[in-house]
């Protein structure tokens, strides 16, 4: 069908609403496209399936690769089930339909070493991990990218909702057009070298437009729901996985108020998360004048060494200084030297809007001085920096290692987050589909 015109008499109605829905599929590679091999990381979901179909339609020599990251059979607790889940089957079905070669790579051991072990250790350090960032950073953009190069590919495309924009100084990473689907937070660790090789054809589309393409191509996965969990924890029970991998995470300990009062006992810090208020299992207490102290208490800190859960008033959760490690800088020029400073809009967790502040490079990484205090910042989460103006370009990011409180001047040690299986978490481990 002619992609530029739409005849309502002959075209399905959803296509007529798609006049802007055809993304720019010029990957910036020399012509002819048929001689340009592009590897597409196919998860078996709608997004990466459409990515592969669009690039094939655009004329590239597309090769689909699906990574088998964990044993699906054991992840869902079914003995004897195949290591490959439905997603791998779906990906191969899509590849067959669109007519591209498709391979499944066994990345189980790399994924365990690079992502799952780190996930569990992160909890033990009193952090809230984002395994999807680690996965992008290691198995996808390091290992798979290297395999793509070995196969003679000139680009690796994924179904991420994020835009790669050519700037004066080379490719830049920008937020997706669809704010509800933007995945730039999870891609902050993409290095300039990786970005040079990567392509994200869906960054300019909305999810609905992507589904329209899936229907247009007749892909079996067109109505497949987005994944809602970390892929290797399909039942959402993170605490169970961590306890299995690191039995010490379930050791009992004290729940202690910031003022030193022991308030009760807990059954493993893995069940707690920074900022958590409900389900602490502790009663109220008396104020100095003997009346009940009704101020709600929050988890403000988790101390893995003493196995203590430290609680306190909401004010104790506030922080204005964020210490950040493993900084990946994607901006132009600035912040390359210690002492450099730049104004940024910083996203401190995936579900929260950005907060403005000034970023300083220091010897160990970076220090972010927020204009206003933010509450419940957790170590192990990412701090992602966007340009302070329009806020679409990703300037870089890093891992939060700790915070310092604001006005009262008392430094708050690394505030750590935990998730509880029985209570809705205020902060959950963050994941991203694809």
């Amino acid at each position: 069908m002619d992609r530029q015109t739409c005849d309502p008499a002959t075209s399905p109605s959803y296509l007529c609403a798609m006049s802007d829905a055809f993304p720019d599929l010029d990957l910036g590679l020399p012509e002819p496209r048929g001689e340009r091999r592009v590897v597409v990381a196919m998860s078996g979901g709608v997004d990466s399936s459409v990515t592969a179909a669009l690039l094939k339609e655009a004329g590239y020599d597309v090769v689909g690769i699906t990574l088998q990251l964990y044993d699906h059979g054991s992840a869902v607790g079914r003995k004897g089930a195949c290591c490959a889940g439905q997603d791998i089957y779906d990906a191969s079905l899509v590849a067959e339909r669109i007519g591209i070669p498709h391979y499944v790579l066994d990345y189980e051991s790399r994924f365990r070493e690079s992502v799952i072990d780190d996930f569990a250790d992160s909890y033990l350090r009193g952090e809230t991990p984002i395994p999807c960032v680690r996965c992008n950073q290691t198995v996808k953009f390091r290992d798979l990218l290297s395999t793509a190069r070995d196969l003679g590919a000139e680009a690796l495309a994924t179904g991420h909702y994020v835009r790669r924009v050519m700037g004066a100084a080379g490719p830049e990473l920008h937020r997706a057009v669809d704010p509800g689907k933007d995945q730039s937070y999870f891609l902050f660790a993409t290095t300039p070298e990786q970005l040079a090789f990567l392509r994200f054809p869906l960054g300019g589309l909305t999810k609905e437009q992507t589904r329209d393409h899936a229907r247009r191509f007749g892909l079996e996965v067109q109505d497949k729901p987005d994944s809602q969990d970390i892929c290797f924890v399909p039942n959402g029970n993170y605490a169970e996985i961590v306890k299995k991998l690191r039995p010490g995470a379930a050791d009992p300990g004290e729940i202690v108020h910031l003022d030193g009062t022991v308030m009760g006992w807990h059954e493993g810090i893995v069940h707690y998360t920074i900022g958590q208020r409900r389900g602490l299992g502790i009663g109220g207490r008396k104020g100095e004048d003997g009346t009940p102290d009704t101020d709600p208490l929050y988890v403000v800190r988790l101390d893995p060494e003493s196995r203590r859960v430290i609680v306190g008033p909401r004010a104790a959760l506030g922080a204005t200084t964020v210490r950040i490690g493993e900084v990946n800088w994607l901006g132009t020029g600035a912040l390359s030297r210690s002492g450099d400073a730049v104004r940024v809009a910083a996203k401190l967790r995936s579900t929260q809007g950005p907060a403005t502040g000034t970023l300083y490079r220091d010897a160990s990484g970076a220090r972010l001085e927020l204009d206003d205090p933010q509450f419940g910042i957790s170590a192990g989460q990412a701090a992602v920096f966007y340009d302070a103006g329009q806020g679409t370009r990703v300037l870089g990011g890093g891992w939060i290692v700790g915070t310092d409180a604001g006005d009262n001047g008392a430094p708050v040690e690394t505030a750590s987050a935990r998730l509880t299986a029985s209570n809705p978490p205020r902060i959950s481990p963050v994941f991203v589909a694809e």
Partner: protein
Amino acid sequence: MTIYLDYNATAPVRPAVIEAMTEAARRHGNPSSVHASGRAARHRIEAARRDIAALIGRDDGDVIFTGSGTEADALAVRGLGRTSIAVSAIEHDAVLAAAPGAARIPVASDGVVDLCALEALLSTETPGLVCVMWANNETGAVQPVAEIARLAHTAGWLLHVDAVQGAGRLDPAALSEADSIALSAHKLGGPPGVGALLVREGLAVTALIGGGGQERGRRSGTENDIGIAGFAVAATIAAQERETEVARLSALRSRIEDGVRRRATDVRIPGGDADRLCNTVSVALPGVAAETQVMTLDLAGIAVSAGSACSSGKVKRSHVLDAMFPGDPVAAEAIRVSLGWNSTMDDCDRFLHAWGAMRDRLSPVARPSNAESVPE
């Protein structure tokens, strides 16, 4: 045009087999029926049984048709009624999965079963069933099954031989003393979905599948007479052509081995020192993942394989090479090239061309400067 060099996975069906199966498909008759159509079908199946026994020189044997080589292995391992089981470390998954708790017989670095270890095991364990394949599917290494039969029988054990890869490629005299032998049609140019277990006459086999009592009560289910007709023709042709094919395929294999060695001094041929199948060569390229090699060659139109295939299509690390070279990365760096009835010298040269290009692009070791140019 794809160059198909993966005969040990499955062979293209021979034209004569297609003809025989087409003819069989035009007939009908359940071999268990009383009437004339049924008796004719029965007659064809019994004739096929003799053709298949003849392929492995065991006219004395009792052939039970199964749905696959895997089923034949499982029928032997679980149906011969022995609780003490020993298997070689390089057996096919069909045997390993049928005997999960079996004692493992180690292999030497040439891929051949360690006879001293085997003898020690046979004398210490309760006598039962020992399983050693005739030739390994990944390296082609031929196992001394005649000698193993002697050792096993001396110690009071039965011997099951998975002959799926060896049949039609090796001299069947070696199988004369084996107690049971598993075969598969599709490795011979027959159809997939048909296998057979040959057992020594008089040896009791308990069925895995009950029902109508076909195959003298040892494998229920109406016989696949179309597939069996194809199996018989494939077996007959393989037996007739065996000697000339061995000579022809050996020359093709040498072409490949000499070619890769000339192009890369660091290449390894696991099992290369052993007596091997004429059609099989394992080629390891140090520093390059086997799956990358398989994908690269596939994208260049050459079909080879590595390790054992999972149903998802991913490449699994080779347990065979791990057993030969414990702790050595070779198990994740070797591909298997396997030839067959329709392979040509031109196939080998095209493989070498693609393999050489891959090697020059991917191998971390520089191409030797004295490498002579090879006609492509």
